[in-house]
């Protein structure tokens, strides 16, 4: 039962990464690819009607995490206190910059909102990556089941770690690059003309650093967290997850050309989902490893809610998610196809 909820929360977070990933990425790259006001608007229109729906995945995943793994929710949210608050403020800034830019048509204010939007998107991607880095590395959970991390100490991995050390910064950068790439492929898919061409060029150029950082994280990860290697040695079928990610990564390069429709973007989704699944598989059965003593780590089993709570949750979660998928399908279908540069009405 706890295993089901582990997969459910993992899947929701993976969907969040692929969906909100493209609008974060569009935010990161829009100052680079969109030169005119009309192009800026086209980029924003390409994410306009869906971005807040995408953020709902984060909220819903948070709620399900709270319900199914209250111990993990309590330990990680209080332990990562400062970075989570920073994430909240960045989400607020990002939301209002989009909202205000579109309500008030002003050449004075629009560039300010653009810069805030780009900065907040980039910082969010970096923070999410650093969070993944912290989960991979483990945190100083002690006997009480809690920990508290400062933002940084001496940037080294040792007894006194902070949220940011050289490893988590590398993962943060990798995430930033992957999101930017994902966003470039999304905007390329949703637009045409010069804008699409610039996105394709940026994506072609950005692919190499993504490859480099993916390789870097993949080789550093097992050094920092030896459990990853033990896990995959014990269950070799788990190689399928990194293989999916690698396939996606190669596909992103191969299909990144005009008139290839959504293939490159779908490959990028595959890449992100493959990475998410690899991480979940690699740290299993841990959900938050302890850097002090493996015995203090939170696992799928010791962090889960009591069994009857989990069973009751199942009764509403399955029909609820089927319904939700239906709404999202309707919302995306109402918004299919490319957005024009000259379209008004956003």
């Amino acid at each position: 039962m706890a295993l089901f909820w582990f997969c459910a929360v993992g899947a929701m977070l993976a969907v969040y990464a692929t969906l909100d990933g493209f609008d974060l990425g569009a935010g990161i790259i829009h100052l680079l690819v969109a030169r005119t006001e009309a192009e800026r608007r086209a980029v924003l229109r390409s994410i306009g009607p869906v971005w807040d729906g995408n953020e709902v995945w984060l909220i819903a995943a948070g709620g399900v995490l709270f319900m199914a793994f209250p111990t993990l929710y309590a330990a990680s949210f209080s332990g990562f206190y400062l970075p989570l608050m920073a994430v909240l403020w960045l989400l607020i800034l990002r939301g209002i910059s989009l909202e205000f830019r579109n309500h008030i048509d002003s050449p004075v204010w629009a560039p300010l909102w653009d810069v805030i939007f780009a900065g907040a998107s980039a910082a969010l991607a970096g923070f999410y990556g650093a969070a993944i880095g912290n989960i991979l590395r483990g945190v100083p959970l002690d006997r009480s089941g809690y920990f508290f991390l400062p933002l940084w100490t001496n940037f080294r991995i040792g007894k006194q770690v902070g949220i940011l050390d050289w490893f988590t910064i590398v993962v943060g950068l990798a995430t930033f690059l992957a999101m930017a790439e994902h966003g470039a492929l999304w905007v390329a898919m949703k637009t045409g003309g010069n804008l699409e061409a610039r996105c394709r060029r940026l994506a072609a150029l950005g692919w190499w650093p993504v490859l480099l950082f993916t390789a870097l994280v993949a080789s550093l990860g097992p050094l920092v967290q030896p459990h990853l290697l033990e896990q995959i040695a014990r269950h070799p079928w788990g190689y399928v997850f990194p293989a999916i990610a690698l396939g996606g990564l190669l596909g992103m390069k191969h299909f990144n050309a005009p008139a290839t429709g959504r293939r490159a973007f779908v490959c990028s989704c595959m890449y992100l989902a493959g990475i998410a699944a690899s991480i979940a598989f690699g740290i299993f059965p841990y959900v938050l490893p302890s850097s002090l003593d493996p015995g203090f780590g939170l696992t799928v089993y010791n962090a889960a809610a009591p069994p009857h709570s989990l069973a009751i949750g199942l009764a509403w979660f399955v029909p609820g998610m089927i319904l939700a998928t239906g709404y999202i399908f309707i919302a995306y279908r109402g918004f299919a196809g490319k957005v024009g540069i000259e379209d008004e009405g956003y």
Partner: protein
Amino acid sequence: MDALTVDRIQFAFTIIFHYLFPQLTMGLALLIVILKSIALRTNNDLYNQAAHFWARIFAINFAMGVVTGIPMEFQFGTNWAAFSKATGGVIGQTLAMEGVFSFFLESSFLGLFLFGERRLGPRLHWMAAFLVFLGSWLSGFFIIATNAWMQHPVGYRITATGAIELESFWSLLSNPWLRWQYPHNMSASVITASVVMAATGAFYLLTDQHRAHARIFVRTGVIAGAIASCLMMYPLGDAQGRNVAIYQPTTLSAMEGLFHTQKGAPLSILGQPDMQTQTLDNPVVVPDVLSFLTYRRWHASVKGLDAYPHDQWPDNVPLLYYAYHNMVGLGTFFIAILVFCLWNLWRGVLFESRLLLWALMLLAPFPYIATIFGWMTAELGRQPWLVYGLIRTAQGASPQVSAGNVMFTLIGFAGMYAVLSALFLFLIYFEVSRGPHADVQGPAAPARTAAGR
């Protein structure tokens, strides 16, 4: 200040600020559905234009509600980790259900409602408005279900390891506390939206703009507001009060300022609780009424605070007393003004009465104030418990988050929300100045509505 105090201030501040927005949108969603229904039935395009104007106001408030709402869900874990760890198996259910059942619904159909009027046609567009309304009221239901469990925990048992396990899902959703708290809260939301709508109409009539739309705003607002404010007193407020008397008797004594048990307990109208002497200074009271309201008998004995051990008293009796009295006082005031306006509307003189239009316009902030006081009554009244009778507030905070760190984020929130308030007020001013005329080219002109929501 210790961490617990700063945690409490931060939660109180962020929740009060957050709730200003859903408080309007939930009620407004209902009024928009009513306007759309009249438009569909009568083919009167004025009603469509009115709905369109309010959809723009709705979108701004909805966006503010979303961005200030995410911190609420996060703070359960960041600042109240011990509480979350103990109760996640129960209230995690309702919070997760809110995400799954209402947020996906709302966010998907709000986009269609705001952008899709031309594409959907009148019937499907009405449907989109209705689904947004349904989503927002479901969202309110799950949040109140969460709060109701904290006020009156039901359907749980404590396992061998000390965790709280949900035993009966049905009990959680049919909590007797929830049964009255939910309609009580939603009625307050309808009053808010009605008064805001009527006040906007009154402003336009007083400044001689958009007269045709303004009449619709005033008429809809006054009728809906008068109905909701009367329902608020009876049966909703009365039943909520009796729930407090049954399930939280200490809270009842504290909010009524009743220090000593007595037969034929009076209802205090004015007065200041004096904690040193345990009396009410300068009391203006109506004899026997509290006994009647609580037990339906004029001479029933009502327990005072002295009947309970001191460590079970709410920790801030005067603030609780004032919050409750302000809520009730304002509620009574709304009935008086709105029913009087309704009578003048029926006589056909409301639109010409500058005095009443002024009164309606100035009424706009008061439902917000009344609601803040109402929620303060609920939350201060529950003290010293976080979950009534089960977990004390002092046991709920995150054990490893220091006061200094919380102070840092509290100041951060204060700064962030000050900027948000200024931007919000500016946007509302901007939309009200544009008025309902700006997009009157028939139902098919979704140009420049809210961004992406």
